[in-house]
């Protein structure tokens, strides 16, 4: 198992969001976490990435406990988070942002390889390389955020709401690039509100409601599940 989360409880201050969340992600898998607003999807990703510290429970990455480590240490272990807010460095250019993404890589040649890889995946970023990140459109920023996450050559990519605030066409292209990454052997865990779309592309899914995992299984099965259809798809 690449990532194992066992009985995780987490939240902000006195406010507990996640209750006994357990999930696993295997190498090369494309896993999704779906659920209504405020269910704790983003909190789950942030806790795994070390931005929120867990109250109790275990997070194992490659068999090593990473729960409670600060975000920078988690990032160095090979987990890259593409957050919903993207957290780009808005006053730096696209190129500088990508260079910061490779902060943990000291080898200049490897940095160059990663940059070529990202530019290959998002040719749009090549045109914009000298533009300030803060002045780009939502779709381009999303690409940059994913690109910055990939710069560190992560083992596991956590993507929070790839479609949030994007036009349908752009959503499609972002999902396509995630697909390309999966085909190249990347492991991705994605959080989405666009349930139909997500369940149609991912291998496996978890349904999170009120901070608890309510259902899990193959994405195709979940898409047919009566409960899921009733709650998310309105049928």
């Amino acid at each position, binding site marked *: 198992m690449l990532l194992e989360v066992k009985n995780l409880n987490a939240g902000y201050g006195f406010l507990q969001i996640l209750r006994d969340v357990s999930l696993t992600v295997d190498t090369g898998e494309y896993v999704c976490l779906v659920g209504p607003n405020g269910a704790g999807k983003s909190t789950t990703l942030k806790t795994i990435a*070390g931005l929120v510290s867990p109250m109790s429970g275990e997070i194992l990455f490659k068999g090593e406990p990473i729960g409670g480590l600060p975000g*920078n240490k988690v*990032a*160095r272990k090979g987990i890259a988070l593409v957050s919903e807010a993207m*957290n*780009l*460095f808005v006053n730096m250019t696209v190129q500088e942002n990508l260079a910061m993404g490779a*902060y*943990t890589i000291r080898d200049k040649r490897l940095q160059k390889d990663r940059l070529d890889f990202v530019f290959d995946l998002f040719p749009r970023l090549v045109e914009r390389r000298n533009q300030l990140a803060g002045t780009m459109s939502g779709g381009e920023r999303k690409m940059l955020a994913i690109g910055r996450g990939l*710069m560190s050559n992560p083992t596991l990519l956590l993507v929070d709401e790839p479609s949030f605030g994007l036009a349908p066409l752009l959503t499609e292209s972002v999902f396509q690039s995630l697909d390309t990454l999966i085909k190249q052997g990347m492991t991705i865990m994605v959080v989405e509100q666009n349930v139909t779309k997500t369940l149609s592309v991912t291998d496996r899914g978890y349904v999170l409601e009120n901070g608890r995992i309510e259902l899990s299984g193959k994405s195709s099965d979940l898409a047919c599940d009566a409960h899921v259809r009733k709650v998310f798809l309105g049928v």
Partner: protein
Amino acid sequence: MVEQVEKRIWERIFKWSGSAAGMAVIMTVVVAVAATLDRGGYVLVNTVVTGGMLALVAMGLALVFGVMNIPMFAHGEYFMIGSLTAYYVFTPINNYITMHPDSALTFIGPLITIVAAMIVGALVGVASEVLVFSQLRKRSRENWVMNSFLLTVGLSVVLINAHQLFFGADFKGITRYWAGPPITVMDVFISRDRAMSFALAAIVVVVFWFFMTYTRTGRAIRAVSQDENGALMVGIGLKGILLLTMSLSCSLAAIAGASLLFMYPAYPSVGLEPLYMAWFVVILAGLGNVLGAVMGAFMVALLKVLTIEYIGSGWDFVVPSALIIVVLIFKPSGIFGSEVRGILDK
């Protein structure tokens, strides 16, 4: 092709000169030149020397605000620590120089003094981060700006009184760093100390700029100032960066304090004037904007020199303050905008 590039550069310059930053810079240069023609070269010289040192203090202030979100009101005390250190290091050196006027120390001695002050400043910066600010960071995340502001005011009072308790309240000054006849530029006599202190300021500003723009660590500092979570996500350790930022900005203030020891002798509250001036600069330039602070420092210095020149020396705090009020009303983000998106966002 070349014409096109040239045209684009001109367009950019034109656009820039229409912006608030461009207008302010051009206006400053015009006013400086006009005043120089009117009153003589010493106006320009005074502006440049005052501005250079002010830039060091203001840059540190902008850095601490931009990266750590601390509205620092103890920054003047790091200036004071710099001048105090310089006094105690330079006094024995000076005695030696007086006995051996031909030794190499006549030139290098003052530099050693300033480097010593820089190191002490950095150490005190580290100490205040470890003992004070990181302790607050562990306990309070809400209302951080207000709490840290109150803490810096407290720190300032403690440091001023500690100085008074251990070193006394008298003026501990020197008459000069570098002996020798003054340098003449544009019919103005500039003392060697002033010329050297400006040269030092210029070197430090340039080195600092290179560090922030081109080195891995400098970029990491900028990344933290723009997005803390983003910085964590790419693997930048916050603790180290915060510690480094604090020690950097304190050592900048200490360099300024040490280089100006010949003008401002060390006494407990010597830091208050540079502190207020630096705050003028930072508000004018935009909170957290480090490079804007350099330009802003020269503007405030010019304003101060002109006020003393044309209105009278009692007014040199009033006019900049009035200007700050005007800036805050019409352009609250400062003339150069800011890398900080507003305190309330964080």
